[in-house]
């Protein structure tokens, strides 16, 4: 089919890029060090008189060569740079397993209230009762949504939450005289952080193969379980976008073998308010506040990864945590009993707690369930609309929050998953997640989230169908040369890795020409 390109939005809406590389509207922006110098500054500060320095002879002897910009120059530099980015606010961001949903600006406004932003982690607890109450309220939402006994708020990101969850499992087994349990089971479809986390704690990782339908077979888990297995790390819904149908039986088998069930909660957005992971038998699960609860991704963080814990693991929760005592809230800052100690200097990502709770209150329990249902609806809609032109790896099952395709439909076209995704850039969409999960050849993982309207989904599907038809029609160059309309064409990653340039260096003074 041909694509109607008339009237395609170029400003807001679904098209992220209005201009081609190097156009007058998107000029190349020099580096800060190429436009600033050590004399210019964008701040006014008084000159300080220091009568007797207390620096003990450790004063700096050499210059830093730090470039400075005045305020108007800085504004222009960072605004210009920003325009080279795709963002949720400028267009659909269908990255599977990343949950790129709308980031409400009310969250930002609230997080900047002085009563949240301008309080110190070590000021007297009597002066931060509202902050502790907020942490308690957030904890209550998370425990209610998951039906779990406890929550550790402090992990700084999802991977940090995984680490904490596995540390809690290790602590529990050490306390029970089960230190010989050195194996962690990880399905092949798992995100790379799972095996990395297990290995970080000294565990041996044992992979569990996926069934032909992309899910984990309870029998395969039973076969892998032994007295040396500490835990299974299972993502549910899994990275193929499928709910693990035997998850309750898997949990039972794991517990029967004396091991724990760590659930990777990266995909909690699909089930919040609809399924409580505690009802499935999980012992620990991290929740990415920056995915499920709308705190901004910020170009790579900060995230937040609170971990809900079962009653068996609750005693091992890290400090600090909030406790009600005689009508006031106290902050427990030192390990008591079995607590595994401290995993970050202070109270965790308070700025993210504020945003997440604001989002929860806005949606309510009813709205969160509706959001999960809409996320699942949107993914299934994409899958249904594109099934005829793309190849679906696991048959005709309903998917959860993301639609997974493989590259069978590109066979013989000379176009790869990478090429196809890059061509999507020229149509104003961010590529989907590619080549993940690893269990599917040439995977394309699409997660629309609940934030996308039917109109945007239709537009996306039309573009996807048109691209698939064009690839099959042999218009290879459109794909292999893509992107053509982005601020940069494909970048040479091999060169970057082979001889790394990781910082700017002042160009050598040109030698004087020989007479």
């Amino acid at each position, binding site marked *: 089919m041909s694509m109607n390109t008339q009237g395609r939005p170029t400003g807001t809406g679904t098209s992220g890029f209005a201009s081609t590389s190097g156009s007058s509207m998107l000029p190349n922006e020099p580096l800060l060090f190429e436009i600033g110098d*050590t004399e210019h500054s*964008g*701040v006014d500060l*008084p000159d300080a008189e220091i009568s007797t320095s207390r620096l003990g002879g*450790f004063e700096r002897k050499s210059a830093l060569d730090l*470039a400075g910009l005045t305020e108007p120059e800085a504004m222009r530099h*960072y605004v210009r*740079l*920003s*325009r*080279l980015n*795709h*963002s949720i606010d400028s267009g659909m961001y269908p990255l599977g397993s990343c949950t790129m949903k709308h980031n409400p600006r*009310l969250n930002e406004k*609230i997080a900047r209230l002085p*009563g949240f932003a301008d*309080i*110190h*982690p070590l*000021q007297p607890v*009597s002066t931060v009762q*509202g902050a502790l109450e907020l942490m308690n309220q957030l904890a209550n939402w998370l425990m209610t*949504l998951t039906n779990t006994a406890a929550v550790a708020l402090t992990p*700084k990101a999802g991977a*940090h939450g995984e680490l904490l969850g596995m*540390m809690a499992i290790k602590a529990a087994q050490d306390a029970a005289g089960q230190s010989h349990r050195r194996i962690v089971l990880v399905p092949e479809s798992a995100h*790379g*952080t799972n095996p*990395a986390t297990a*290995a970080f704690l000294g565990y041996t990782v044992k992979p569990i193969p996926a069934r032909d339908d992309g899910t984990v077979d309870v029998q395969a888990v039973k076969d892998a379980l032994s007295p040396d297995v500490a835990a299974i790390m299972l993502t549910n819904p899994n990275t193929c976008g499928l*709910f693990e149908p035997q998850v309750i039986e898997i949990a039972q088998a794991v517990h029967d073998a004396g091991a724990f069930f760590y659930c990777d909660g990266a995909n909690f957005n699909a089930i919040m308010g609809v399924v409580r992971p505690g009802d*499935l038998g999980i012992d620990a699960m991290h929740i990415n506040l920056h995915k499920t609860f709308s705190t901004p*991704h*910020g*170009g*790579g*963080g900060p*995230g937040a990864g609170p971990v809900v814990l079962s009653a068996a693991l609750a005693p091992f929760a890290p400090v600090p945590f909030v406790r009600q005592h005689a009508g006031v809230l106290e902050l427990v*800052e030192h390990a008591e009993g079995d607590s595994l100690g*401290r*995993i970050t200097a202070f*109270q965790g990502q*308070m700025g993210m707690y504020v945003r997440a709770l604001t989002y929860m209150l806005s949606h309510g329990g009813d*709205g969160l369930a509706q959001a999960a249902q*809409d996320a699942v*609806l*949107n993914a299934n809609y994409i899958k*249904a609309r594109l099934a005829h032109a793309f190849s679906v790896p696991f048959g005709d099952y*309903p998917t959860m929050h993301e639609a997974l395709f493989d590259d069978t439909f590109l066979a013989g076209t000379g176009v790869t998953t990478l090429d196809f995704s890059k061509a999507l850039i020229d149509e104003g969409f961010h590529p989907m997640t590619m080549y993940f999960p690893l269990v599917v050849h040439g995977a394309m993982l699409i997660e629309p989230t*609940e*934030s996308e309207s*039917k109109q945007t989904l239709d537009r996306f599907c039309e573009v996807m169908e048109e691209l698939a038809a064009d690839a099959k029609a042999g218009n290879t160059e459109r794909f292999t040369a893509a*992107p053509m309309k982005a601020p940069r064409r494909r*970048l040479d990653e091999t*060169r970057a*890795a082979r001889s*790394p340039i*990781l*910082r*700017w260096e002042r160009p050598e003074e040109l030698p004087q020409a020989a007479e």
Partner: protein
Amino acid sequence: MRYLPHSDAERAEMLGVIGASSIEALFSAVPAKALKTFDLNLPQHSPEYLVEAHMKALAGKNRAGSDGPFFVGAGAYRHHVPATVDHLIQRSEWLTAYTPYQPEISQGTLQMLFEFQTQVAKITSMDVANASLYDGSTGTAEAVLMARRLTRRNKIVLSGGLHPHYRDVVRSYLKDDADLECLSASPEGQGDILDHIDETTAAIVIQTPDFYGHLRNLKTAADAAHAKGALLIVVVTEIVSLGLLESPGAYGADIVVAEGQSIGNALNFGGPYLGLMATRKEFIRQMPGRLCGETVDADGQRGFVLTLSTREQHIRREKATSNICTNSGLCALAFSIHMGLLGEAGFTKLARLNHARACALADALAGIPGVELLNKTFFNEMTIRVAVPAAPLVEALAARGILAGVPVSRLEPENPNVANLLVLAATELTTDEDIAALVAALTEELA
């Protein structure tokens, strides 16, 4: 529900396209006994103004730094953040972008990270810096593990001047590790860490300015460590100090870890913060976290990409250097913009101003009967000994509207030697009136 675009009619139409009878049919893989068999005991959705009122009520129960004299530091510092910084980081293109995996449409974030890495490398006088870690404390734990990989040795020695929370984080990361030596608290700036270095030592970890405010001699530490084949890890919790102090790299540090919150980032009750890490060029392949590098695109134009990802979990899985994926991107942006606004001239001025305010504070405190200033050296933070336990004293001063600092006992409750110690910080925001108010109240409380 203002964040959800579909009407019920659209939902029905979409279900028709899918061929599903109801939304519940899409959840058919969920075991029946786990599917919405419960009543969520949670509030219903709420309009913006009611949510705002709820949150404002919570915020109102906290005492903000701007509410009165404020001397709290100990690893997090109250500095001015220019309005430009907060405006820029709220631009959609920065705030709502993902990790820059698609470099063609992420050059803004990538060039910023390249500039950030350059700034951090220059400030620390190290060869290379990464694109940030969660915070200074977890960065310290990562540095310790990195040193073990680099030296293939196990023994780690933590200085008694290291922030106690940082020490506790390293302890949690290295659980039950007999090769971890944590030296006892050294509030007078004393230290015998050099005596603990031997041929099995992977690294010694020294903070400067240390937790108590003292400036530590990095040159002798670097020489002693290197003489035994060990590495020197330097921790800096107040990055502004490097506007005035010689950089760790100039003294021979092998890995520098810092908390970058002071530049561009608010206190936020402890997070999100910004872990900085810099090291020598030859160590980069054992460095955790994202790295941004320069390259060219298909047209030969300069561009930037995430690179050396063969260190990372998404490629290496269980063989990765760390499990880290997310860093502190937006906090790094705030840092980079603020540092760009300061430039060398502004950064130096800011550091001088901080030191000047701290000198004024120290002189004022030293004049109070019953107050002993423990520091001969400091940057913007210092420790005093008083005749009474510091924790209730801080509470009494808080009741008078003054946040007087951090009682060391809050971090070291088991150590009776520090019960009467109080750590106080001054920044450019500390006024003469603030200091006068503190001195008056402290004089009365100690009388």
